[in-house]
């Protein structure tokens, strides 16, 4: 009997089994990063330097740019359109998505128009970004907002559609009468996991589209990366590719942490 109980207790957070698992995962993660650098280094040794720079050259760039403060400055510049674009696009996307998911009238009207605009690639909006906002933070934020809008829109819509019908009925039987009341007290809390998923996906996609949006000439990591590429400064290109990767991981972790706190009931 005692033997059959043991495997269950192993998975409980805070026990030895959990720590061992965690340690093992950390080891695997660190190991694969080392292996990745080793592979890259090995390949770089047998490739002309102009095609694939070696890790030390990239490290030099990073050390130099961290020391001079340039890396920090570029990150701040990029965040200047990344954050407003992500937040505004996500908020609008969630709002419209909830509306379309909730009301069949909105689904038939707004939803139909959305279906038409959805396939337009975000970068096709660049001409409008330029003539409406100009080559500045607002223009880049506009492109990022479009990406964030669609991802949040679809997650919010399906999140609202999937709300357990019985919970709505319970809410009504307990005195919630208006649509707004039901949305606020039943639909939104119940769709929060999907809203988070949408926001987290959008936050990741926004880094990618940010680089492209900075092609317009808006200062930031992406523009710096393109400028370096024009002068064939490949170590700089790789250095900032890595910076974007790290920024993505950081933002993703941050949102996951927030998610775990807010959704502790799951």
């Amino acid at each position, binding site marked *: 009997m005692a033997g059959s109980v043991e495997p269950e207790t192993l998975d409980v957070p805070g026990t030895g089994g959990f720590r061992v698992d965690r340690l093992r995962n950390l080891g695997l993660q660190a190991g694969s990063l080392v292996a990745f650098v080793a592979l890259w280094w090995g390949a770089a040794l047998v490739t002309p330097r102009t095609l694939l720079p070696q890790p030390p050259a990239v490290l030099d760039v990073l050390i130099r740019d961290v020391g001079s403060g340039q890396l920090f400055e570029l990150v701040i510049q990029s965040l200047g359109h990344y954050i407003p674009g992500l937040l505004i696009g996500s908020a609008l996307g969630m709002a419209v998505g909830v509306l379309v998911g909730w009301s069949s009238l909105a689904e038939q009207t707004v939803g139909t128009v959305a279906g038409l605009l959805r396939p337009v690639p975000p970068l096709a909006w660049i001409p409008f970004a330029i003539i409406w906002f100009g080559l500045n933070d607002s223009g880049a934020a506009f492109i990022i907002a479009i990406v964030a809008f669609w991802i949040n829109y679809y997650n919010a819509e399906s999140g609202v559609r999937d709300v*357990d019908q*019985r*919970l709505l*009925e*319970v*809410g*009504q*039987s*307990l*005195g*919630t009468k208006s649509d707004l*009341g039901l949305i606020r*007290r*039943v639909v939104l*809390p*119940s769709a*929060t996991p999907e809203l988070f998923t949408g926001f987290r996906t959008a936050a990741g996609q926004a880094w990618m589209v940010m680089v492209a949006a900075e092609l317009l000439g808006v200062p930031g990591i992406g523009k710096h990366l393109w400028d370096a590429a024009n002068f064939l400064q490949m170590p700089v290109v790789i250095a900032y590719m890595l910076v974007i990767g790290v920024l993505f991981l950081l933002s993703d972790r941050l949102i996951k942490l927030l998610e775990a706190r807010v*959704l*502790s*009931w*799951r």
Partner: protein
Amino acid sequence: MATDRTASTETPAIAVDHVSKTYESERGLVEALDDVDFDVHAGEFVSIVGPSGCGKSTAFRIIAGLESATRGEVRVDGAPVTGPGPDRGMVFQDDALFPWRTVAKNVAYGLEEVGPPDGYTVDERVDYCLDLVGLSDKADAFPKELSGGQRQRVGIARALAVDPPILLMDEPFASVDARTKTTLHRELLDIWTETGKTICFVTHDIEEAVYLSDRIVVFSGGPGTVLDEIPVPMERPRDRTGDAFTGVKADVLAYFEDD
């Protein structure tokens, strides 16, 4: 004679008045209920019993106001039902708790909407209801941390919180294990005695109906009609193995055996 007259003119707590329900489906019209007619009196414990698909859940939903009748009407305390409302507490088969709310917050939901009953604050009312179902120590737990039986208790506490005169229960114990079920039966009867609610209880479990009810409304399927109303004139607590008990059980069962 005089008392008889008052009894017959007394407004029933729930009057299901010649209710029919027809659905439109892809294969045409489906008749779910055909001229269903019965009353539940104030303070009475009435079960609706029938095989699955007999329309008893449809009847429940119409009484709850979640669906409308095609013909006829349901009146609660004399007033036609037009939608769900806090005068009829609902308890579902799968607890249907708000998973993002703690146990106490689930119970508080209705109180936040319509306010606590006279003489209580919201917190006092939550405490009282949790105490009633024996879950005071779980107030801060989330539904995922509870067993199936505990979740059903929270569902009952939540329905009772706003002090509705009527409790509507749709197979509330269908998915808990047999032992928990027996405990829950006793607890429900205690709560019923203490609060004096009118209870309309839908189930396909005949023994459950005989154990709990004052009266059993027997449904037949396709379309749902009332076959009979069987009174259960037995003292509580009832002995599930006694002759009187098995006798009533056999009476109810007799309606389903020739199917």
